[in-house]
């Protein structure tokens, strides 16, 4: 109640101040996060009159969970949300024709990014649905000599790049279907379904600065990969995925793919530099920090670090000015350590100490520096409070300790 009143006063004050919004913003990277009701925080980093307190939001460093819309994507989508609202499957009038044209243009944009033919792209509600369609294919076509290999292209927790081309080569020679979930990889690293001999690929819109609620599945035509539809209905999308194709969303996905194709090299270079900066600064200032995942085959924008003797959740809470994650969003409700870290053989205690830093197209050097500074500060502070750390400083080997009496 109190918060809302204070908020409205702030709002009135900001509105009353003349010419505010047209000024170039004075704010650098001043951050003040209000602990209560973060969902009602105002993103107000335009110029603010000195007497008005603005409620600011945390820095966004969690791009593996989701990405903001690129302005170019929203610009492409808006006409289809407002004006060109026809059903793309209506064949009898201009509303349908223009909507269909937009859908096919988007299909071409997606296909172009991965070296596919547009006829091989089926729109879905996201990579999860695409994964389910791909896996169901296994049940549909099971024979003694067929099976399906399904591998993530880039892992969402530790950023490791799998040797897709090599796996594709093996699968092709053994006549085994090869599916890859490329949600974190599309538009970020070069992918070609023919060079890499991929038969099925899942694509997600909201991981590449496109809208949420849309994705695509690539299904190879030559040689034909047979897929069974998950949802039946009016036979849209060549019968493989019934349901009206949501034109504004697919236009957004297409635009995101086109922008990604243009920006891939520039983004990759910049993100690599920022990632290097983040890891070097942290590792040079703090001992006992481990980077999880193969450093050589690694997508730079996803950095997973374990800070020994510091509990991951408490570090996340301490870094309240920065939106981060420890482990994937899919499993963040539970307190179990990441299955990915367990799979790569990380010690249980280090797995609990892991934080994932996400660097994306819109991440700035300032944001990286701020995050690094806060991270170093809080790790040091938490270690000071940690009895384990104290023991280590005294030279005690933690593995030699008997924690239980019986």
């Amino acid at each position, binding site marked *: 109640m109190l918060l809302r009143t204070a908020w409205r006063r702030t709002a009135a004050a900001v509105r009353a101040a003349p010419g505010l919004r047209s000024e170039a*913003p004075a704010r650098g990277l001043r951050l003040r996060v209000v602990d209560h009701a973060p969902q009602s925080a105002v993103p107000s*980093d335009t110029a603010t009159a000195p007497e008005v307190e603005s409620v600011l939001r945390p820095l966004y460093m969690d791009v593996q969970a989701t990405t903001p819309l690129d302005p170019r994507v929203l610009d492409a989508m808006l006409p289809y949300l407002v004006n060109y609202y026809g059903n793309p499957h209506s064949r009898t009038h201009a509303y349908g024709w223009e909507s269909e044209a937009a859908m096919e243009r988007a299909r071409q944009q997606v296909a172009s990014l991965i070296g596919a033919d547009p006829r091989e792209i089926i729109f879905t509600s996201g990579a999860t649905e695409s994964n389910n369609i791909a896996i169901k294919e296994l049940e549909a076509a099971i024979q003694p000599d067929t099976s399906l290999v399904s591998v993530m292209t880039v892992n969402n927790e530790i950023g490791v790049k799998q040797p897709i081309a090599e796996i594709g080569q093996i699968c092709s020679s053994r006549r085994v279907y090869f599916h890859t979930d490329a949600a974190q990889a599309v538009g970020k690293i070069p992918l070609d379904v023919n060079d890499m001999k991929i038969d099925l690929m899942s694509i997600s819109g909201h991981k590449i600065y496109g809208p949420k609620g849309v994705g695509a599945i690539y299904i190879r035509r030559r040689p034909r990969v047979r897929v069974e539809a998950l949802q039946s209905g009016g036979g849209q999308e060549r019968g493989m995925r019934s349901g009206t194709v949501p034109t504004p969303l697919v236009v957004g996905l297409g635009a995101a793919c086109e922008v990604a194709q243009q920006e891939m090299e520039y983004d990759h270079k910049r993100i690599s530099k920022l990632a290097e900066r983040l890891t070097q600064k942290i590792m040079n200032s703090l001992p006992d920090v481990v980077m999880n995942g193969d450093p050589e085959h690694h997508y730079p924008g996803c950095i997973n670090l374990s800070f020994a003797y510091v509990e991951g959740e408490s570090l996340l809470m301490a870094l309240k000015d920065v939106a981060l994650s420890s482990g994937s969003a899919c499993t963040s409700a539970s307190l179990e350590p990441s299955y990915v870290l367990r799979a790569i053989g990380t010690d249980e205690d280090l797995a609990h100490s892991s934080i994932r830093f996400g660097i994306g197209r819109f*991440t700035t050097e300032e944001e990286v520096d701020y995050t690094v500074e806060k991270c170093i500060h809080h790790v040091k502070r938490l270690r000071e409070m940690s009895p384990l750390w104290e023991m280590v400083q005294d030279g005690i080997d933690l593995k030699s300790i008997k924690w239980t009496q019986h």
Partner: protein
Amino acid sequence: MAASSRAQVLDLYRAMLRESKHFSAYNYRTYAVRRIRDAFRENKNVKDPVEIQTLVNKAKRDLEIIRRQVRMTRINCDMEFREEI
């Protein structure tokens, strides 16, 4: 249409930067300014007039996108002040 002169390209560059600074979202604003600077810098030695014109046309389209989106995000930031239900 006559080929774009150095002055016209510079005008376009300045206009794009000016407009980009009006993005209310920090991440969009910094991205637009940075990307525009880097793109113009990268292409500053292009000599072929056809290529120059293609780049200029794309920049003009991007300027329009920036103009529209600046307004769009500004309007939508205003709505943040609305009371939540």
